[in-house]
């Protein structure tokens, strides 16, 4: 896929789900044994064009997520390169045990793509939001977890996951007009975090759409002479431990920002590792504070849960006192 300014803009406009659809389409051109499996969500996952172009490499199993994973594993056991996708809660929680047994334990290699994770579908209520997926999957050995920061990173994450030998869960956040973090092509490597902003006072670790919000927050804080490092932790598992160690050495405060419960996600992963580092600075975990709020539009919910750039700024200032 050609990474240029035009495509970056288009992918941003169409959002991460449709970008995933285009990426799958391109991958099908080069990978003979690719199979994309869904549960009645082709259009929602941007897979309409894929479905029509490669009907033999596509399988819709209806609204049956437990069967989805088992069938995917059966195909993987016969050396097919399998992608499964549906809405994040159903992709991860509904079939959690199937993921444990078939993917974690039996190690059948599958790339799972959870669409509309986080708070994107808040107008439909929390049944269709997902603030638990990272926490739950982190506890299953053998699954890499990636949360791409923008649509370009979505392309790279899907490509890497499909070509990897390890099973992966790619967590797609955001809606259409997905803010652009990467304006130019760059190197993406699973497990290697990316420092996007450098500042001496504190380090913000962010994942998914919160990377953009964290960059905006850093800009606001700079005006008040507070200098932030912002790190895109696109790979939540395996965690980039070196990045955490470096931040502990260089920053007075660590902050994590994610569209996920403060329990179990990126912040928890960092806290777990940080607890083994002597004399490390405080870590403030920003995310959904372990409750299901009323629903609403994406921006509304970001505000409600303290995840807009301004709210991130407020929280940081509170913790710097």
């Amino acid at each position, binding site marked *: 896929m050609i990474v240029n300014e035009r495509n970056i*803009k*288009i992918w941003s*406009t*169409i959002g991460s789900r*449709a970008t995933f*659809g*285009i990426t799958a389409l391109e991958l099908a051109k080069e990978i003979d044994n690719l199979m994309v499996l869904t549960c009645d969500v082709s*259009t929602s996952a*941007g897979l*309409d*064009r894929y479905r*029509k172009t490669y009907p033999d490499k596509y399988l819709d199993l209806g609204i049956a997520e437990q069967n989805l994973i088992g069938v995917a594993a059966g195909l993987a056991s016969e050396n097919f390169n399998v992608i499964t996708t549906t809405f994040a809660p159903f992709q991860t929680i509904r079939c959690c045990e199937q993921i444990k047994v078939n993917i974690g334990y039996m190690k059948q290699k599958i790339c799972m793509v959870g669409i509309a994770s986080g708070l994107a579908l808040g107008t439909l209520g929390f049944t269709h939001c997902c603030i638990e997926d990272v926490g739950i999957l982190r506890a299953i050995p053998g699954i890499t977890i990636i949360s791409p920061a923008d649509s370009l990173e979505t392309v790279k994450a899907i490509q890497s996951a499909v070509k990897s030998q390890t099973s992966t869960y790619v967590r797609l956040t955001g809606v*259409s007009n997905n803010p652009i973090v990467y304006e130019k092509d760059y190197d993406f490597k699973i497990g290697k975090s990316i420092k996007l902003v450098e500042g001496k006072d504190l380090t913000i670790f962010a994942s998914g759409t919160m990377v953009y919000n964290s960059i905006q927050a850093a800009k606001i804080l700079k005006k008040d002479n507070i200098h932030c490092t912002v790190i895109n932790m696109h790979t939540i598992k395996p965690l980039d431990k070196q990045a955490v160690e470096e931040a502990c050495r260089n920053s007075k405060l660590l902050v994590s920002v994610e569209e996920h419960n403060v329990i179990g996600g990126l912040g928890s992963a960092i806290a777990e590792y940080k607890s083994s580092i002597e004399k490390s600075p405080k870590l403030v975990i920003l995310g959904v504070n372990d409750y299901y709020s009323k629903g609403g539009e994406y921006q509304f919910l970001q505000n409600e849960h303290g995840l807009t750039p301004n709210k991130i700024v407020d929280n940081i200032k509170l913790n710097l006192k």
Partner: protein
Amino acid sequence: MSNLEKYKEAFIKALEIEKSKFSDKIKYNEIPEWDSIGHMSLMSELEEKFSITIDTDDIVDFDSFNKGKEILGKYDIKF
């Protein structure tokens, strides 16, 4: 280049249609290239070409080459 030519070019480029296959009668979802992904590409291309930002309602209503001309009229684009 006239606005009409710019407009036509946007369609050809965004939807990746061959010039020879292009017709001003095309409608959303009636040709394979103009599906939901093609549509967003087209909106993006038009925004860039005409330096405008298209409203969500207009993006939804924009369902044919001709309807599109009408919609762009709201943004002071004359054909």
